């Protein structure tokens, strides 16, 4: 039971944020607090989508490390469509790796650089087998590779030789082997990019809403001199009552 709850930590945070946001936007009288509540509510939905798209141990869907090598051999066409498929396929396989990949040891290893455990083993075999492709990647962006290797953790070591085998068979020239290589040679697991893209759009929508809302609050403050919803309501009621009395008096006077 406790495991069930702990394994879904993200979702508990999302639910808590969602309820907090909704409660604030309903209960607060201050208009700015209402907007803040609304933003918290929306943010919880963003987190919900991101959590949906997260693959355990996955990185951003960009070509790094061995993928750069593998991809170089295989061609550029396949990236978008097959990328998702690859992520989907590898997700269950790589999930056991996730517990190994804690962020704390990773951060400690990087600055030391003196004896990185995963780095040389991860790159060297690839460099030997596909020398043309790895060199530029290695020299241009060393921090990325370090990050990649550290994110992937130890299970990389088994995968690397496999991947480069695929690459080599791709070089041999069989068309479908090339295709296959492109699909499974994407070595780094990465998260499903679609929810991220959707949420980028949703964030833009949220920012637009927030901007319009704040502009409205400025105008309300100019017109009413307050940004408390109950005071605005009371002012409206008082004015309406006065107007009605004045009209009644005018009607009686005319009669």
């Amino acid at each position, binding site marked *: 039971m406790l495991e069930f709850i702990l394994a879904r930590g993200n979702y508990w945070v999302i639910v808590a944020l969602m309820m907090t946001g909704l409660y604030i*936007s309903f209960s607060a009288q201050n208009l700015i607090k209402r907007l803040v509540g609304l933003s918290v*509510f929306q943010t919880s*939905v963003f987190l919900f989508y991101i959590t*949906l798209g997260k693959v355990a141990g996955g990185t951003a869907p960009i070509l790094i490390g061995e993928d750069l090598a593998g991809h170089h051999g295989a061609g550029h066409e396949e990236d978008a469509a097959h990328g998702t498929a690859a992520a989907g396929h590898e997700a269950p396989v790589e999930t056991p790796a996730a517990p190994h990949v804690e962020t704390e040891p990773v951060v400690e290893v990087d600055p030391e650089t003196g004896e990185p455990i995963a780095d040389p083993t991860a790159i060297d075999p690839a460099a030997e087998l596909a020398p043309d492709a790895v060199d530029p990647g290695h020299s241009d962006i060393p921090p990325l590779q370090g990050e990649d290797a550290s994110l992937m953790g130890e299970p990389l070591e088994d995968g690397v030789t496999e991947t480069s085998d695929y690459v080599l068979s791709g070089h041999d020239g069989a068309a479908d082997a090339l295709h296959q290589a492109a699909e499974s040679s994407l070595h780094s697991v990465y998260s499903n990019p679609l*929810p991220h893209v959707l949420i980028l759009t949703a964030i833009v929508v949220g920012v637009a809403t927030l901007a*319009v809302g704040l502009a409205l609050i400025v105008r*309300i403050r100019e017109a*009413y001199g307050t940004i408390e919803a109950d005071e605005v309501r009371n002012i409206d009621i008082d004015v309406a009552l006065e107007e009605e009395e004045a009209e009644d008096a005018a*009607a009686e006077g*005319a009669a």
Partner: protein
Amino acid sequence: MIESILTHLAPAWAIAHAAPLLVVAPLVVATALVFVPSGRLAWLISILTTGASLFFALILLALVQADTVTLAALADAGIQTNMLREGVVSYAIGGWAPPVGIEFRIDALNAMILLLVTFIGTLASVFSWPTVNAEIRTEKQNLFYGAYLVCFAGLAGVAITGDAFNLFVFLEISSISTYVLVALGAGRDRRALPAAFNYLVMGTIGATFYVIGVGFLFAATGTLNMADYTALLPELVGNRTVQAGFAFIIIGLGLKAAMWPLHQWLPNAYAYAPSFVTTFLAATATKVALYALIRFLFTVFSPAYTFETASFDWLIAPLAIAAMVACSFQAVFQTDVRRTLAYSSVAQVGYMLLGVSLASVFGVSAGLLHLMNHALMKGGLFMAMAGIVLTYQGTTLRDFAGLGRSAPWTMTAFAICALSLIGVPLTAGFQSKLMLLQATFTAGWWWASGVIVFSSVLAVIYMGRILEAVFFKAPENPRKVRKEAPLLLLIPLWVLALANLWIGLDASFPYDLARNAAEAVIGVGGQQ
């Protein structure tokens, strides 16, 4: 008749790209309006733009209704029609094939809603100039028309897209511009500002609920395309993720459609917005949200699912009934005519939802017919309202006294639309209410029939109060001399009033549209 558009009028590029152009044209022009120096020029441009969209909507309707012979003739002429099969136009945006890319998908239901939105949009644009000129500051008029076109494009986009997330984006495009448009009523009455703010908070919550629902569906199926949902969801009926998604989507879209009791944003927003904005919104905004609701209820989900049948019987039908009774009562006790009409709008949404909740072809087509008729009558009523605001400034019942003598042409059209709202024979409202009554009787919901009649009696009371003041009371304020609304207002107003009478005499055109639409969506659900 309508097919002559395809064969004679429309150029090949317009037929091939009607779907995206309908949305993109107003969106692009809206941004360009920022640089237009004068409000009058912006007005003319927006008439042209909405008129062009109307033309594209007619092309789409013709394509959807076209038979195989016409389509074959078009194909022979080398004209690309994007027909998926007979009755369905599918346009892949940017050439990305549908499940991956965004799809614009038009069937009989969309085509009808698009025709309604663009028709009302064009008519409202023609009508708008005198009232916008009077209510909006000169230097903001071009921006006002820009916001209006963005709103128009958003509504058309909601009606045309076949992608669930894209629908959210268009929903928010139209909503955010609506908040701005409503707030611009502050020039006349500062209460427009809190009304717009409340609308913003509630509208955003509704849209976010919809996004949560789509997220659940995405988690269960891995797709965002509505046609994909139709294919994938039957296997997942028992899945609780899908059911939760259903609940969130219904609540989110219900809020946008002003389903009782989620309608709290509507009365104030309609009452304090600029007259032109109220006219346009009352006739289109809730209708489009209702369309999205129907799309999800019948195309994405299906009445064959037990949880949906339960929600029809225990959620949507009772809420529809509650709206018809409660909001009609509230309408009776309003002293501001615009608030009466706004509450009446919520009650009329109840009629439409009742028709939808019957989940039969007959019921849904009755609901859709009422949706169209209501757009025509409420559009007409609010146009007359705008004319009165323009010439006499008052909106209360007291201000309306004796107007029948001061402005006979305006108020006669008002009276025709009011009678149509009540459901007097020989008007459009009678046709749709009669059909709704028949549908409820056929389904054996005799109690619902009783409520329809009762709610109509309440409509007699609240509209009767206004008509009595207008035609049988002496003007209290002596300065009210005879003065009509400008001709530019009167012509669109009378177009709508005569449309109400014409549909009252011969409802075959809108009836066929509604019937085809209902068959298109229920047919899709029935295949499962």
